[in-house]
């Protein structure tokens, strides 16, 4: 049985629908990310689970119990806020023990649990320090310890890493993942950062304009996006519209000047996306798309190239693996495999 079940969860503000009929089951111990651009309804969803926002319709069921009438302070969920929301007048230790005191735990047990929580986030030495005198990363850890120490049934993370600088964010991602594995708490992460969602989650829920676009594990969501929106939001994507053609009894897909043999597969109908890292520079050939290298940007471990072709601009990512990269302005030929073309449903209401 699922641990947390959202059924047709909907929130409307006047005419605006923030969340539209969201349904999702989360298993015990699972790490699920709600991913989407700002205004897609992911934070509203989190706030409905937390009990800060009342759903217009739909239900939230935790461990078989409907949370509809349970106020926020009786739900027993741990929340880490984007700005940490630590109590500035309390030390790290006092912040963490606040939730335990609310549960009516004795002094000695509080102290033991606080020490345990601080050890989990490796901040034992800062127990008596006030948040104003801690770095962003340390405040983040205290906030995490404060949420976990009450042994919540579900941990809710609201863009917890977005205020950290890039290097620290990567470190915290790894640490968050390992802490979540250690304690095994069911976790829901709200983020607009696709790499964060890919790195941390067991499953990703991609949301757009209040609706769920796709629910899948990170690899399948990236490799087989359900819609053009998901393809474009999770990583970079080139979108093509192949025309089916028949060549000596074999189906081929024509994209611009390229005729791609389908090797027995049917030609996809409608739009397909091709990830930039799946595209190679090759010699002139029937199956290659000619173009002119417009720009190339060196990014350390890879090159990001923009190529002008007859079907529009195409992004190509090439590993910095020792092979030479064509110079800007050179004519290039792009190739990719038939199976790297992923059919997607076109974007609804695309701008």
């Amino acid at each position: 049985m699922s641990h947390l079940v959202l059924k047709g969860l909907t929130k409307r503000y006047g005419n605006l629908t923030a969340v539209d009929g969201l349904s999702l089951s989360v298993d015990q111990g699972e790490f699920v990310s709600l991913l989407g651009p700002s205004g897609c309804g992911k934070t509203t969803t989190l706030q409905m689970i937390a009990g800060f926002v009342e759903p217009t319709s739909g239900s939230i069921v935790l461990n078989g119990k409907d949370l509809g009438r349970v106020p926020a302070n009786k739900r027993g969920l741990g929340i880490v806020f984007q700005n940490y929301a630590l109590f500035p007048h309390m030390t790290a230790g006092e912040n963490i023990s606040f939730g335990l005191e609310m549960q009516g735990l004795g002094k000695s047990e509080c102290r033991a649990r606080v020490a345990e929580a601080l050890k989990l986030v490796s901040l034992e030495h800062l127990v008596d320090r006030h948040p104003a005198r801690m770095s962003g990363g340390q405040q983040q850890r205290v906030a995490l310890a404060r949420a976990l120490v009450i042994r919540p049934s579900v941990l809710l993370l609201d863009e917890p890493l977005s205020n950290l600088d890039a290097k620290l964010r990567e470190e915290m991602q790894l640490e968050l993942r390992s802490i979540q594995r250690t304690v095994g708490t069911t976790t829901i992460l709200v983020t607009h950062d696709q790499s964060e969602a890919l790195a941390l989650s067991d499953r990703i829920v991609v949301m757009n304009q209040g609706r769920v676009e796709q629910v899948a594990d990170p690899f399948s969501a990236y490799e087989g996006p359900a819609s053009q929106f998901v393809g474009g939001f999770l990583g970079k994507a080139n979108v093509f519209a192949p025309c089916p053609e028949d060549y000596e009894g074999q189906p081929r897909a024509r994209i611009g000047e390229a005729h791609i043999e389908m090797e027995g597969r049917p030609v996809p109908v409608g739009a397909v996306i091709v990830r930039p890292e799946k595209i190679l520079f090759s010699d002139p050939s029937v199956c290659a798309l000619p173009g002119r290298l417009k720009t190339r940007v060196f990014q350390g471990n890879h090159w990001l190239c923009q190529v002008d072709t007859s079907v529009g601009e195409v992004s190509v990512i090439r590993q910095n693996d020792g092979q030479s990269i064509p110079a800007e302005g050179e004519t290039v030929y792009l190739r990719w495999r038939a199976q790297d073309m992923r059919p997607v449903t076109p974007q609804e209401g695309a701008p």
Partner: protein
Amino acid sequence: MIVDPRARPWLLSAPALVLYATFLIVPLFMVFLISFFDFQFYGGIQRVFTLKNYVEILTDGYYYEIYARTFGVAAAVTLICLVLGSTEAYVLSRMSNPWKGLFLMVVLGPLLISVVVRTLGWALLFGSTGLISQALMALGLVSGPVNLMYSNLGVTIALTHVLVPFMVIAVWASLQRINPSSEAAALSLGASQFTVVRRVIVPQIMPGIASGSIIVFALAASAFATPEIIGGRRLKTVATAAYDEFLNTLNWPLGAALAVLLLVATMIVLLAANRLIERRYSAVYN
């Protein structure tokens, strides 16, 4: 022109210092000086050094009563303003947007009306034939007419009305600095709404409560118009007593001594309170 770098800050702040000295330091010092002069009923003010005025104040029970009343009323007003003003500011901060601004205007509106006019308004309500007295009688809560004029209660009520906006402004300012999700965080950790206010909100707005209380206490202790109109001749406070000495008896030295003692006593109370609060809530002050 080459100026010694150490002299530069002094030169730059010189205009303000001159203004400050002329209009605050000099008059204060003059009052301090006059308080040591002597006063003869037929000879007027004598420029001699004497502690006579201070001895008179410190040995006469009449003045003790005046000081006790002044600080008693000021303390009561501060306490009531603290409770009303903080609650008001908190409720205001939780209102939704068009109402928030409107009610803030309503709260601060009385500041636009002269204190004298407002106090005279209270005088109309307070008399034995006034609205309050008649309402209480109509409701059958009292048997005879109630006169709040010339009573400590009347002075306290009127002063509270005059001074509560200062408390609201001070607490409002520090409420604005609170991270709104710290309240949500406390709720999610299982705190009741009351616990949230007591353990999360109040400690964080302590600087606002402290500065509001200091403003209200200082203004209440030195208030003149309200105690003069509502308290009248019967209930003198230090400010009205000093006024009488200056302008009725023409005993400037005694009036000056009263004023100096009021200033010193008020400063001692406020500095002590401030130190206490700052030490207790040091974390929210930095």
